[in-house]
């Protein structure tokens, strides 16, 4: 099967709607089919990556730990738009640590989250074969 470049664009916050959870499910399916998967977090989507989410009192599933499984599916490119973080008073330290093992570098553990500015992220959109929005 030919490999395509898929970019999943996440622009919604995590718990107010089903979009964020559904996106993560589809990402894992795409990655299981060994496609070249990248994720982008823009606008309120950046809130999906915050640490210490505890949904025990709102009666919904906390799916945020599932992001940690992405590394096992070789998802190594998680792009976060710097402008979206700054507007919301957030920094990289507020985000979960997501890592992958780089097979081209003796399986060294590396950071999967890359904080980039709008211009750089726009260029990444151009490089994709498929754009999926949530």
């Amino acid at each position, binding site marked *: 099967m030919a490999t395509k470049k898929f970019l999943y664009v996440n622009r919604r916050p995590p718990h107010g709607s089903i979009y964020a959870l559904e996106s993560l499910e589809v990402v894992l399916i795409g990655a299981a089919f060994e496609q070249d998967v990248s994720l982008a977090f823009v606008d*309120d989507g950046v809130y999906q990556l915050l640490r210490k989410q505890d949904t025990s009192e709102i009666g919904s599933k906390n799916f945020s730990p599932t992001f940690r499984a992405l590394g096992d599916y070789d998802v190594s490119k998680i792009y976060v738009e710097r402008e979206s973080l700054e507007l919301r008073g957030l920094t990289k330290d507020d985000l979960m640590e997501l890592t992958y093992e780089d097979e081209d570098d003796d399986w060294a553990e590396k950071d999967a989250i890359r904080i980039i500015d709008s211009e750089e992220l726009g260029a990444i959109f151009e490089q994709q074969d498929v754009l999926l929005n949530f």
Partner: protein
Amino acid sequence: MSILHIVNKSPYERNSLDTCLRLAQADSAILLIEDGIYAVKKNAAAASKLQSALEKHKIYALEPDLKARGISADDTIEGISLVDYDGFVTLATEYEKLQSWL
């Protein structure tokens, strides 16, 4: 007592909070729930709007919704009162009317 205004949308995605703040009268209160709670985060663009609104209104935020979204009580701007579900119910009974800015 007059109106309790309830906002459940993110201030970065919808204009519900802006419209609420524009129309809410001085003796009314504002309760932020669900994605509305992102407005209380310190050092963020929406915080300055709430800061000036605090001069006119009592502002509450629902703590279970903060916890679910990974925003800690320490990370909220000064002057916001956090309430639990019981507090939400009490507020609903204290005000004459509820206005939900959907």
